[in-house]
């Protein structure tokens, strides 16, 4: 008889499959681990640009973790989903017992696993450079990273599900570069006011400032969590409305 595997094992199978794909893809590793690691080392070992108040290595590690989220949850997911949509992968998986819901769940778990790997690698590098986070701040930072990932995944799906694959590739990389300067690595408070004020309302600025706040002085980033939640709710609603499964 043809019966499905239990829902949990279907989602975990999809997550394991996608995690292996993500971690065995050279370009993906470059963007998700190597570039954030280079940014961390460069910021921690130099004195420009100004990163604002706090220990420089704490600020650099927070920036690198934020960049890791943008790389994996936004750029990586947008490109992968855009091309899977074009090649019919989303349609095919929709006809298997996994289904559309299972595909989204599996993908989300894979993003969290890759994020975990990034936190360990970048945290290890940060520690080697002198980063010593407090337990409370670290816990708040992890919550923030998960919220930020959800927010960026919803925006990635919105992009990947509405424009053609080549445009997704171009836009996802362009957005990565632009956001880099809008609060990911450098606090929005340090940016010129005309840039910093809007940047604090973008998911990049909100996530970056929140992670920096938690890791530098263990503060609860209520305002930034609010900004990220609004983007997440808007992104999810737009995905539900406009995402197209076929390319």
């Amino acid at each position, binding site marked *: 008889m*043809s019966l*499905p595997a239990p829902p949990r094992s279907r989602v975990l199978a999809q997550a394991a499959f996608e995690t292996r794909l993500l971690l065995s893809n050279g370009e993906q590793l470059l963007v998700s681990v190597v570039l954030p690691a280079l940014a961390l080392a460069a910021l921690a070992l130099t004195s420009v640009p100004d990163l604002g108040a706090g220990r420089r290595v704490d600020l650099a590690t927070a920036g690198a973790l934020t960049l890791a989220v943008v790389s994996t949850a936004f750029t990586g997911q947008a490109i992968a989903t855009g091309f899977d949509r074009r090649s019919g992968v*989303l349609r095919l998986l*929709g006809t*298997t017992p996994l289904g559309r819901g299972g595909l989204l769940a599996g993908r989300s778990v894979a993003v969290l696993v890759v994020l975990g790997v990034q936190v360990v690698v970048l945290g290890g590098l940060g520690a080697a450079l002198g980063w010593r986070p407090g337990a409370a701040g670290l816990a708040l930072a992890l919550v923030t990273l998960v919220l930020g990932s959800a927010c960026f995944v919803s925006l990635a799906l919105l992009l990947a599900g509405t424009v053609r694959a080549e445009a997704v590739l171009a836009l996802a990389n362009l957005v990565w570069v632009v956001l880099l300067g809008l609060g990911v690595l450098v606090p929005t408070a340090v940016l010129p006011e005309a840039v910093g004020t809007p940047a604090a309302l973008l998911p990049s600025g909100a996530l970056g400032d929140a992670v920096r706040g938690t890791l530098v002085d263990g503060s609860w980033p209520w305002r930034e969590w609010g900004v990220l939640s609004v983007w997440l709710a808007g992104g999810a609603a737009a995905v539900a409305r406009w995402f197209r499964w076929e390319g």
Partner: protein
Amino acid sequence: MAPAVLVHDLRHAFGRTTAVDGASWSASSGRVTAVLGPNGAGKTTTVECLEGLRRPDAGEARVLGTDPWRASAEHRAAVGVMLQDGGLPTTTRPLPLLRHLAALYADPWPVDDLAARLGIDAFARTTVRRMSGGQRQRVALATALVGRPQVLFLDEPTAGLDPHARREVWDLLRSEAGGGTCVVLTTHSFEEAERIADDVVVLTAGRVAAAGSLDAVRGGRSLEDVYFGLTAEAER
């Protein structure tokens, strides 16, 4: 017994273009049903409605007695699908992909055996992106078979295959039908239909021009002659 696949007065349009225009036909368990028709006759759209990928505008699509649109995982496990564009992730190799898909089912076809049956082991190290059309075709067929479905939908399963591979696929599909599976395939090949189909459905302009057993549709002539007669009539 109710047919495994039932299409009743099915209609589906893309904007102003009508793809399926009131088609009715059925397919039974243990038989191979070939759906023939010119490009644009509505074959793929009909099959996509049966796979749950499109929602009919009107009429009925039923597979194993269930409406396939938003059907449960239990239903999807009983239905194997081979899409025309394959739907294979381009950066994967065939065996990890098939093992992954097998993990979605409670009692899948053992992957090594399936891969050997379809000659996939010969190019196991090749990523989907670098495969030939025929190799991709075989992997796509394996994705449809891996869950050991009760109903198989195959969109042009042997297009691009060499004669040996085509014969192996035909043998495999006949043996699946022999085991009780309802096999529905779309094709442009009269040879394919005459070699493996029990039943034939001819679609033109979204309607059924003929449906029934191969012999009844042929009526003592060649399927090719009957087909051109039917499709030319519809286009006049």
